[in-house]
C-alpha cells in the first residue's frame, strides 16, 4: 500500500474524531440558543476569544471521553517495522488492525496518533480533579487566614511562602522518587490533603444548617459516609467495598500537583477574602451573631467566585503543564504511559531526525492549555462587563 498524502491524513483524522464533532456541535448549538438564560456561562458565547477557548477545551474533553472509539491502535502495542515511520505509513500486511499509522510511529513502533488521543484521557482525569482539590485546600486555609488575620495568617502565609520558594522541579524530584515513596510520605500527604474536601463540606453544611438540627444531621451523615468512603479508597487504598482504588504512582503525581498548586490558591483566596471582609454585609452577618465559618463560607466565598472561576480555568492549564513536566522528567507515571509529557520525553532524543513523535503530543498539550487560557480570558472579560 502507498503511504497516505497529507490531505488524506487530515481527512482520516477528521473522520476518526466524528464523535467529538457531534458532541461539540450539540453543546454549542444548545448553549448559543439558551445563552441569555445561562448566566456567566451564557455570556461566554458573546466573546470570540472565549468561544475559541471553550471550543478547544471542549474538543479535548470529548476526545478524552470518546478516546476508546477514536484510537486506531493499541497505544501501548508495537508493530514491527513501524519504528519511527513517517505519518501516513501503512501498517505491514497481515495485521488485522487499522491500515495506517496516521501520525506515524515512534521509536518503539507504537502509533503516535493513538498515544496522543489516549494521553488526553490521563490529563483530563488528573488535571481538573487535582486543581479542584488544590482549590479546596487553598480555600479552607485561605479564608480563615484572611478572616482572622494575626498570628494564624502569619503562620499560614509563612508556610505558603515556604512551599512557593521551592523551585517546582526540585520539589517534584524530592517528592516523586522511589525512595520517598518507600517511606510512605506521599501517602501521608494524601491522607492529610484529601481530608480537606471532607472538612470543607462538613463545615459548609454545618454552618448553614446548625439552626435546624434535623436537617443538619441528615446532610452531615450523608456527606461523612460518602466522603469517608471515597477518602479511604483514594488516600489509603482501603475501600471496604473494594470499588475505589487509585494506582500508587498516579496518587503520588496527584498529591504533588495538589501540593504545588494549593499555596497559590491560598494566596488568591486570602487576598480576595481580605477585600470582601470589609464589606457591610459581612459586618451585618457578624452583628446578627453568625459564626465565623458561616461568614467565611456563605458570605465571603460566594462573592469571590468570579475571580476564582477564572483562576480555576487558568490553573487547570497550569496543572496540565506541571503534569507534562513530570512526564518530561520521567517522574511518577509509568515509562510506557501514553501521557503527553512522557511521550514528548520519549520523542526528544531523536528530535532532529524524527520530530513527529514529539510534535504531536506537544501540539496537543499546547492547544489544550491555550484553550484554557483563552477561556479564562473570555470569562474574565465577560464577568467584568455590565
Amino acid at each position, binding site marked *: 500500500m502507498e503511504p497516505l498524502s497529507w490531505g488524506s491524513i487530515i481527512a482520516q483524522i477528521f473522520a476518526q474524531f466524528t464523535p467529538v464533532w457531534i458532541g461539540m456541535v450539540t453543546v454549542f448549538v444548545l448553549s448559543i440558543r439558551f445563552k441569555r438564560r445561562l448566566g456567566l456561562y451564557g455570556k461566554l458565547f458573546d466573546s470570540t476569544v472565549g468561544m475559541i477557548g471553550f471550543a478547544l477545551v471542549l474538543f479535548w474533553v470529548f476526545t478524552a471521553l470518546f478516546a476508546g472509539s477514536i484510537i486506531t491502535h493499541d497505544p501501548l502495542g508495537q508493530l514491527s517495522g513501524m519504528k519511527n515511520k513517517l505519518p501516513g505509513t501503512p501498517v505491514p500486511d497481515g495485521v488485522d488492525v487499522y491500515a495506517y499509522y496516521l501520525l506515524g510511529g515512534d521509536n518503539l513502533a507504537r502509533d503516535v496518533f493513538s498515544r496522543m488521543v489516549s494521553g488526553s484521557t490521563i490529563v483530563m482525569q488528573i488535571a481538573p480533579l487535582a486543581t479542584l482539590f488544590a482549590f479546596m485546600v487553598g480555600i479552607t486555609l485561605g479564608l480563615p487566614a484572611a478572616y482572622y488575620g494575626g498570628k494564624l495568617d502569619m503562620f499560614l502565609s509563612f508556610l505558603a511562602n*515556604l512551599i512557593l520558594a521551592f523551585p517546582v522541579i526540585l520539589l517534584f524530584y524530592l517528592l516523586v522518587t522511589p525512595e520517598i515513596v518507600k517511606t510512605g510520605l506521599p501517602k501521608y500527604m494524601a491522607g492529610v490533603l484529601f481530608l480537606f474536601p471532607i472538612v470543607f463540606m462538613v463545615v459548609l453544611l454545618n454552618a448553614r444548617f446548625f439552626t435546624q438540627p434535623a436537617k443538619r444531621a441528615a446532610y452531615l451523615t450523608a456527606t461523612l459516609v460518602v466522603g469517608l468512603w471515597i477518602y479511604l479508597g483514594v488516600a489509603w487504598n482501603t475501600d471496604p467495598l473494594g470499588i475505589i482504588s487509585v494506582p500508587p504512582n498516579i496518587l503520588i503525581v496527584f498529591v504533588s500537583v495538589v501540593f504545588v498548586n494549593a499555596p497559590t490558591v491560598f494566596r488568591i483566596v486570602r487576598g480576595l477574602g481580605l477585600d470582601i471582609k470589609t464589606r457591610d454585609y459581612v459586618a451585618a452577618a457578624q452583628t446578627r451573631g453568625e459564626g465565623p465559618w458561616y461568614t467565611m463560607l456563605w458570605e465571603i466565598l460566594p462573592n469571590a467566585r468570579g475571580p476564582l472561576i477564572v483562576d480555576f480555568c487558568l490553573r487547570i492549564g497550569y496543572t496540565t503543564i506541571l503534569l507534562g513536566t513530570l512526564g518530561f522528567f520521567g517522574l511518577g507515571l509509568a515509562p510506557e504511559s501514553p501521557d503527553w509529557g512522557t511521550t514528548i520525553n520519549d520523542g526528544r532524543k531523536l528530535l532532529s531526525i524524527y520530530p513527529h513523535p514529539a510534535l504531536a503530543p506537544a501540539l496537543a498539550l499546547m492547544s489544550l492549555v491555550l484553550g484554557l487560557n483563552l477561556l479564562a480570558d473570555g470569562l474574565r472579560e465577560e464577568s467584568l462587563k455590565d
Partner: protein
Amino acid sequence: MAIFLLRRIGVMLLTAIALTFIVFVLTNLQPNLEKVAKFQGNVRMTDEEVTSWLGKNGYDRSMVARYGEWLGVVPGWTYTDDAGKVTGRCIDDDNADQAQTRCGVLQGEWGHSIVFKEDVRDIVFKRLGLTAKLMFWVMILMVPMALVLGVLAGMREGTRLDRSLSTISIATTATPEYVSGVILIAVFASSAVGLKWFKGTATSAMDDITFANFTLPVVTIALYGMGYIARMTRASMTEVMTTQYIRTARLKGVSFTNIVLKHALRNALIAPFTVIMLQIPWLLNGVVIVETLFNYKGFGWTLVQAAGNNDVELLLGCSVVAVIVVLVTQLISDVGYVFLNPRIRIS
C-alpha cells in the same frame, strides 16, 4: 526602612533554614541512605552491613544533629574503629589532629559529589556560571520585549492592536518550555523540515557562545516567561489608563504620548516589577527543562543529574543555591516595590 530591611532579612533567613532542613530531611531518609551505602560500599550488602556502614560514616545520628553538622553549627562526627583509627566528617586523610571541629556549609565545606567525584562547591559554582550566562541573555531578550508588548497592548484597551498582542502573549504562556523547545527544534534545527538555521543542542555553547548554538535555548525560556510578564504589564497598564488621574492629565491637555510616558508608565510598571522578580524561581524551572532538552550542562542539568543519581550532597548543594536565589529575588522584589512606590517609600 532599616527596620523593614532587617525584619525582611530575618524572615528570609528563617525561611532558608526551614527550607534547607526540609530538603535535608527528604534527601536523608532511610531508603536514600541505604542506597548511598550500597552505592559507596557494595551493592550486595546485607542489612546489617548497611547499618554498620551507616554507623561508621556518621549516618546513624538524629536528623537534627546531622543537619547541624551539615550546616556547620554542630561539631562534625568522628568514628574510632577497632584499630583506633579515627575517621570523621571533617577528617580528610589521616591528619585527624589538625582537622577542624566544625565543617559545614557555613565553613565552605559543601561535601563531595559521588557521581562527579568532585567537590560540590566547585561543581555548583562552575555550573551556576554557565547558567548565569544563559539567564543573562534570557533577561536581555525577555524583559524589554514583555514590557513593550504589555504597554502597547494596555495603553488602548480593546483595540485591534491590544487584541492581537494579547493573543500572542496568551499563546506564549500556554506553551511550556518542553513544548516550545520541541517545536523550535523541529522547525529550525531538524533535518525533517530542513531549515537547519540553528543547532538543536547547546553543548558547544558551554565553551563558546554563538548565535547558532545559543538562540534556541534562550528563545525557548524567554518565550514562556515573556507572555506572563506581558499580560501582567497589560493588566496593570489598562488599570492605570482608566484611573482618574489619567483623565485629569488628559483634560489638562497633555498629549497621549506624554500621558503614556510621563503619567502612566511609572505607575503601571510597579506591579510588573514584582512579577519579573518573582518570575525568577519560575525561570529556574525553565532552565532545568531547557538545559536538559538542549544538553547544556549548567546548574539545571546538574540538579537533574544529582536528583536522578541520588547524589545527596550535590542535591543538597543545588537546593541551597536554588532556595537562596529564590529568596534573594523575593527580597529584591519587596525592597524594589517599596522603592518604586512613593506612597510607601515616603511615610
